[in-house]
């Protein structure tokens, strides 16, 4: 069951020192308006959890929070796209917690699904061994990683209904997984529709996981934002 609130009200759920999951993948399917509001509100000392950093020079995704120096810890699998963030990590302003991408995703899933750990062979024989505990299962070595949860997850979906059922379009990325793994889940959507307008088999995230719905840009607005970004970065 979800409650519809404004972007400003939603951003108040995040306070200094909160841990915040942000859905999406390198700009795609990220909650644009919520990130803008978190940046504008100047909330500090955030632990941000997302699959990878944002674009060079800010742009969409978490780059704005980096430019504002709002992050003290970043839990992720990749930072290579954002030189500003790398500089803050090297200077010791941001603590970095890395895991391989598939492991990162499963850690979030474990956090949401009530599991005690993720046990994976990925990273054996590399520096990643030092980031986890080694265990043997049926004679084979694995790395044991702890689950990840957050105070607040800010995710992005295509449509929602008043019950908080979410429908995705395109790649849902980390959004349906993060929707399970935080104490408060805020979904930014292109469109809010009536109960029953999202058919049960189209529900990507059932409303049981969602606390708040906020109205984001419309699909058309987002399409224009990304077209401009992709043209400006020679990607389209």
């Amino acid at each position, binding site marked *: 069951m979800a409650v519809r609130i404004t972007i400003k009200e939603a951003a108040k759920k995040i306070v200094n020192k909160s841990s915040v999951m942000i859905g999406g*993948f*390198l*700009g*795609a*399917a990220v909650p644009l308006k919520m990130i803008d509001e978190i940046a504008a509100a100047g909330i500090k000392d955030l632990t941000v959890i997302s*699959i*990878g950093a944002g*674009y060079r020079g800010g742009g969409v995704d978490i780059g704005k929070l980096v430019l504002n120096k709002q992050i003290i810890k970043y839990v*992720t*699998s*990749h*930072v*290579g*796209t954002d030189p500003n963030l*790398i500089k803050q*990590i*090297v200077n010791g302003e941001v603590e*970095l917690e*890395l895991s*391989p*991408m*598939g*492991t990162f*995703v*499963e850690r979030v*899933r474990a956090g949401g699904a009530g599991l005690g750990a993720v046990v*994976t*062979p*990925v*990273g*054996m*024989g*590399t*520096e*990643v061994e030092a980031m986890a505990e080694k265990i043997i299962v049926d004679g084979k070595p694995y790395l044991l990683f702890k689950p990840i949860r957050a105070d607040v997850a800010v995710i992005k979906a*295509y449509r929602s209904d008043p019950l908080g059922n979410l429908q*995705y*379009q*395109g*790649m*849902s*990325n*980390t*959004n*349906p*997984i993060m929707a399970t793994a935080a104490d408060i889940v805020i979904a930014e959507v292109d469109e809010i529709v009536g109960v029953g307008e999202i058919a049960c088999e189209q529900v990507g995230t059932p409303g049981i996981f969602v606390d708040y719905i906020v109205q984001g840009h419309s*699909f058309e607005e*987002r*399409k224009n*934002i*990304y*077209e401009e970004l*992709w*043209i400006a970065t020679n*990607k*389209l």
Partner: protein
Amino acid sequence: MPRNYIARRIAKEFKDGMYVNLGIGIPTESANYIPEGTQVFLQTENGGLMFGPKPKRGESNPDIANAGAEPITMMAGGAVFDVATSFAMIRGGHVNMTVVGALEVDEGGSIASWKIPGKLLTGMGGAMDLLYGCKRVIVAMTHTDKHGNPKIRKRCTLPLTAAGVVDMIITDKAVFRVAKDGLHLEELAPGVTAAEVERLTEGTIINIIEWEHIEIT
């Protein structure tokens, strides 16, 4: 050296019906040379299977992009999914082949591609999962670094992305099969001699004697 030689050579490894994940750069370029009549299902780790070329301007979808954040299109019969499903495909051994770049590869099939201590910090992204889970691993890279130093080493000197996983190395000079006993030279690029490849390769080429014999006769 023919233009896009490495990308064209990678494409010869595509077999009909394969599920393939291509790394950013030259590996992705190889999709332009998929042989006619060969159907390859391209997977992108951010959550897509059977994607196609870039859209035209005005026809992009803000939520359809590749792992390099570039807009793509989905082919008829394609699928999109979340990243947990994507990495179940990758880690679970459902993807037949991956082609990746590298900083170094060694004769034991280990690969270093994600970190240069004190110089390069990126994070491993999905590379470790791909190298572990994909059944066949091809490394595509220049034979030497920009200073002319060998990138095919006896032992990688940089932090590993995965140990003992590489099956094939394709460079601008040669193609190697990486077997349990080490590096086997399989092909030379046009105009390249075995002696040149041996000089520019630090790892031991098990079968170099056969190639020297071919060149003498």
